[in-house]
C-alpha cells in the first residue's frame, strides 16, 4: 500500500478493500504498509482500483513477456492471464504481453511457469527483479529526507527574518517549507477530505495553513506574521516522519537483505560474479569463508563450516560436506565448497520465510480494533475541540491572533499516529527478530495468544526427542545373546532394529533370516535359533515367562536377553521444559504406552498422558482448553489436527517446505520455546506500553495546548508540533528497543 500515513488511512483502505464485492476479509497494516485480502471470485484489478479510488495506491510490478501466440489469440489469452492469482492487469503489444502483477504473490518466473502449464510458451523479455518493499521503504525515506532538508534550510532564515523585523521576507522564505516540504501533509489531508474522513495529515495541514494564511491576512493589514509557527510545525513533524521512515526501512531491509547477495558462479570453469537473483537451478556456485549462501543447494565438492542460525536458530557453526543440503541465507564461516543450486528465487526456503513474515506482519492484534475505532473519531474530536478552544478564548476577550494560537496548538499537539503505530510496530519488530532466529511466525496474532497460554502440550517422539532410539538397559541372561541379536537385527530395516544392531559391533553370520513385520525377526546364529522381537511376539514362542520390557531376545526358544530402549532428548529440551514449568502447566502427550512414556515423565518431571491416538490428542487439547488457553507443540504433519485445535499451534519441523506444515509458528526445536514465550510476552508488553504512551500523551498535551493552565503553563504551536512528532518517534523506537 502506498500513501498510508495514519491509523485513519488504515480504516479508509480497509473500508475500500471490504467494499469490493467478493472480498471476504481485509487486513491492513500501517507499519509494514501491507494489506492481505481474502477473496472469492474477485479480479485483483477491482481490488487495486478500489484502493486507488480511495486515494491510495498499491505497489505493483510490471513485466513484459514474449509469448508464442497469434494476434487473434491474444484477447482470449488476456482473459486467462488475468485469472492467474497475483495478476492485476494485462495489456498487449507486439507479441508482448505486458503484465502488471503483485510482486508479493507472484514472480515473473512463476508467471512463465503458469503460462507453460496452460500450454503457452512465454519468456521474460525485460524487467528487473528489484525487491519491491526495500525500494518502497527507501523511496519514502529519501522523499522524507529531501523535504526535511528543504524545511530546515528555509525555516532558519524565516525565523531570523521574522524576528529581525522583515515580515514580508519571512513570509517569502517560508513558502518552500509550507508548500513543498508540507505538501505531503496537504496532499494527505486532501485525500482524507475526499474520502470524508480526517487523519493526522488533516491536523498538521490545517494547523500550518491556519498559521500561514492568517499571517498573510495579518500582514495585509499591517500586522505581525506568525510564519515561524507554520514553518516549525512542518519541520518538526517531518523530523518525526523521517525517523519513522528510517526505522521502517531498516526493519524491512534487515531480513530482506539476506535474500539478495552476490554469488560467485562457475561458467566454463571461470568464476563470474552475479547477483543471487540471477541464479538458475543447476548453476554451480563457489562458497568461501565470509560469503553468504546465495540459494538453496547441495554441496558438490569441498567442505565448509556454516552458520545456519536462520534455519535452526543455532549460531554454532556446523560442518557440511559433499551431498549435504544448504539453505540460502546461511553464512559461510570457513572452508571452501562448490554448491549445486537446487532452488532459486521464490521457491527458496528464505523466500518462503519472508513470505510468511510478510503475512504475519500485517496481523492485527484484537486490541487494534479498539484503537482503530478510537483513531477514527480522534481527529474529528480534536478538530471540534480546536474550534471550541478558538471560540472560548475569543469569548474571553482575547484577540483573534491569541485565540488562534491556542487553537493551532491543539491541532498540532494531538498525535493520532502514535495510536496507529503502537501495535503494528511492535508486531513487525518481533516477527522480524524471531525470523532471524529460525522461528517463522505464520500468524502474527498467535504472538498475543501465546502470551496468555496456560497449558503447553508436547508431542513426544520427534518433538521432545530426536526420534532415534537407543538401547538404555540390557539384562543378558545368556552370555553372547546381545551379539547374536545384533547380528540378526542388522539385517532388518525396522527403526528399532538399528538400535539393537548398534548394541554390539561384532557381528556373526546369520542363516535363514526371516522378518515378521511389526513383530520381530528370526535367524540362526552359530547353531542357535535366535528370535528378537516384542514381548508379545516372544511369548508366543517360549514356554517361559517374559518380563515386561521393550525387546526380548530368545535363544533356542528361551529368554536370553531383555532390552529397554529409549529415545534421546533433543539438546536443550530439558532446560526449556524446566523454564516453561515455572509459569505453565506442561503435559506430554504421546502415542507410546510402554516404558518410553514413563521415562520421559521421570526425565522431565512432567505429567505424561500415554497411549494416545492422534484424535485423542485433539480431545486432550479440547479438554485442557476448558481450563485456559493451550499451546500444542508437535510435528507439523502428523499432529496437524491438534495444532489446529490448540489456541497456538507450534510445529517443530525440520523440512524446508513451510507451506506444508500446520501451525501458527514453525520452529526447529522446542529448545527455543522459552525464547519464543519471552518474545510473545515482550510484544504484548510493548503494545500495551505504546498504547499507554499514546493515550497518556494525548490526554495530557491536548488540554495543556488548549490553554487549560494558561497563563501558568501553555504550549506554543511549534513546541506542540515537536511534542507530537516526538510522540510517534518514541513509539517507533520503543518498539524496536528490545533489550
Amino acid at each position, binding site marked *: 500500500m502506498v500513501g498510508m500515513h495514519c491509523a485513519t488511512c488504515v480504516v479508509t483502505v480497509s473500508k475500500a478493500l471490504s467494499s469490493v464485492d467478493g472480498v471476504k476479509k481485509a487486513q491492513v497494516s500501517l507499519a509494514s504498509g501491507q494489506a492481505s485480502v481474502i477473496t472469492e471470485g474477485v479480479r485483483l484489478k477491482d481490488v487495486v482500483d478500489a484502493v486507488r479510488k480511495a486515494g491510495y495506491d498499491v505497489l505493483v510490478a510490471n513485466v513484459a513477456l514474449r509469448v508464442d501466440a497469434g494476434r487473434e489469440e491474444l484477447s482470449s489469452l488476456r482473459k486467462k492471464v488475468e485469472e492467474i492469482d497475483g495478476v492485476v492487469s494485462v495489456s498487449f503489444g507486439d507479441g508482448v504481453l505486458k503484465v502488471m502483477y503483485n510482486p508479493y504473490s507472484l514472480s515473473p518466473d512463476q508467471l512463465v511457469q503458469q503460462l507453460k502449464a496452460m500450454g503457452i510458451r512465454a519468456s521474460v523479455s525485460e524487467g528487473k527483479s528489484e525487491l519491491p518493499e526495500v525500494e518502497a521503504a527507501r523511496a519514502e525515506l529519501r522523499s522524507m529526507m529531501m523535504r526535511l532538508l528543504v524545511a530546515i534550510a528555509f525555516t532558519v532564515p524565516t525565523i531570523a527574518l521574522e524576528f529581525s523585523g522583515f515580515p514580508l521576507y519571512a513570509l517569502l522564505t517560508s513558502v518552500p517549507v509550507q508548500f513543498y516540504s508540507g505538501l505531503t501533509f496537504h496532499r494527505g489531508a486532501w485525500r482524507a477530505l475526499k474520502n470524508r474522513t480526517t487523519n493526522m495529515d488533516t491536523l498538521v495541514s490545517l494547523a500550518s495553513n491556519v498559521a500561514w494564511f492568517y499571517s498573510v491576512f495579518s500582514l495585509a493589514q499591517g500586522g505581525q506574521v506568525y510564519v515561524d509557527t507554520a514553518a516549525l510545525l512542518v519541520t518538526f513533524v517531518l523530523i518525526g516522519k523521517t525517523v519513522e521512515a528510517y526505522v521502517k526501512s531498516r526493519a524491512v531491509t534487515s531480513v530482506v537483505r539476506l535474500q539478495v547477495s552476490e554469488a560467485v558462479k562457475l561458467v566454463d570453469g571461470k568464476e563470474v560474479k552475479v547477483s543471487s537473483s540471477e541464479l538458475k537451478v543447476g548453476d554451480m556456485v563457489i562458497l568461501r569463508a565470509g560469503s553468504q549462501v546465495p540459494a538453496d543447494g547441495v554441496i558438490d565438492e569441498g567442505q565448509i563450516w556454516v552458520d545456519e542460525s536462520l534455519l535452526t536458530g543455532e549460531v554454532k557453526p556446523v560442518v557440511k560436506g559433499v551431498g549435504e543440503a544448504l539453505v540460502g541465507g546461511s553464512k559461510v564461516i570457513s572452508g571452501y565448497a562448490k554448491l549445486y543450486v537446487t532452488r532459486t528465487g521464490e521457491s527458496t526456503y528464505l523466500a518462503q520465510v519472508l513470505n510468511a513474515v510478510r503475512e504475519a506482519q500485517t496481523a492485527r492484534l484484537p486490541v487494534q480494533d479498539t484503537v482503530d475505532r478510537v483513531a477514527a473519531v480522534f481527529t474529528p474530536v480534536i478538530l471540534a475541540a480546536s474550534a471550541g478552544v478558538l471560540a472560548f478564548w475569543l469569548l474571553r476577550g482575547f484577540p483573534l491572533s491569541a485565540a488562534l494560537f491556542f487553537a493551532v496548538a491543539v491541532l498540532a499537539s494531538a498525535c493520532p499516529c502514535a495510536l496507529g503505530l503502537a501495535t503494528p510496530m511492535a508486531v513487525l519488530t518481533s516477527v522480524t527478530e524471531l525470523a532471524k532466529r529460525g522461528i517463522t511466525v505464520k500468524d502474527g496474532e498467535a504472538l498475543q495468544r501465546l502470551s496468555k497460554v496456560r497449558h503447553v502440550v508436547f508431542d513426544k517422539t520427534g518433538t521432545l526427542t530426536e526420534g532415534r532410539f537407543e538401547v538404555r538397559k540390557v539384562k543378558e541372561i545368556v552370555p553372547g545373546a546381545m551379539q547374536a541379536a545384533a547380528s540378526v537385527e542388522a539385517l532388518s530395516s525396522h527403526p528399532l532394529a538399528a538400535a539393537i544392531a548398534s548394541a554390539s559391533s561384532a557381528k556373526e553370520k546369520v542363516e535363514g533370516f*526371516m522378518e*515378521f*513385520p511389526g*513383530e520381530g525377526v528370526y535367524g540362526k546364529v552359530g547353531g542357535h*535359533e535366535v*528370535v528378537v522381537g516384542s514381548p508379545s511376539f516372544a511369548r*508366543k*514362542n517360549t514356554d517361559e515367562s517374559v518380563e515386561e520390557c521393550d525387546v526380548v531376545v530368545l535363544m533356542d*526358544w528361551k529368554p536370553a536377553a531383555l532390552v529397554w530402549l529409549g529415545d534421546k532428548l533433543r539438546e536443550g529440551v530439558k532446560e526449556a521444559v524446566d523454564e516453561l514449568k515455572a509459569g505453565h502447566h506442561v503435559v506430554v502427550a504421546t502415542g507410546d504406552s510402554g516404558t518410553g512414556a514413563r521415562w520421559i515423565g521421570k526425565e522431565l518431571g512432567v505429567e505424561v498422558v500415554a497411549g494416545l491416538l492422534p484424535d485423542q490428542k485433539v480431545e486432550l487439547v479440547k479438554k485442557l482448553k476448558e481450563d485456559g488457553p493451550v499451546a500444542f507443540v508437535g510435528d507439523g504433519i502428523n499432529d496437524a489436527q491438534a495444532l489446529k485445535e490448540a489456541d497456538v499451534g507450534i510445529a517443530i519441523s525440520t523440512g524446508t517446505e513451510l507451506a506444508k506444515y500446520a501451525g501458527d509458528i514453525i520452529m526447529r526445536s522446542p529448545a527455543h520455546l522459552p525464547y519464543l514465550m519471552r518474545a510473545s510476552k515482550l510484544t504484548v508488553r510493548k503494545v500495551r506500553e505504546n498504547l499507554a504512551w499514546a493515550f497518556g500523551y494525548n490526554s495530557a498535551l491536548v488540554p495543556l495546548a488548549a490553554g487549560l493552565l494558561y497563563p501558568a503553563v501553555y504550549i506554543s504551536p511549534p513546541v506542540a508540533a515537536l511534542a507530537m512528532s516526538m510522540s510517534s518517534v518514541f513509539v517507533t523506537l520503543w518498539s524496536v528497543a528490545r533489550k
Partner: protein
Amino acid sequence: MSVLDPVCGMKVEETTAYRSLYRGKVYYFCSQNCKKEFDANPDKYLREGPHVMKGCC
C-alpha cells in the same frame, strides 16, 4: 514352494509377507485377516485345522 494357510486352508506361497512365528514354526497366510485370526487364537487352528471362513479370502 506353496503351503497351506492354517486358517482358511488356501494355498499360499512362502514368499508372502503375511506370516507368523509360533512355537518355533513359521505359518503363512493369504491375508492380514487370516494372520490376525491365527495370532489371536493359534492353538485353535493348529488343533482343529483350517476352517472355511467368511470374509477372509
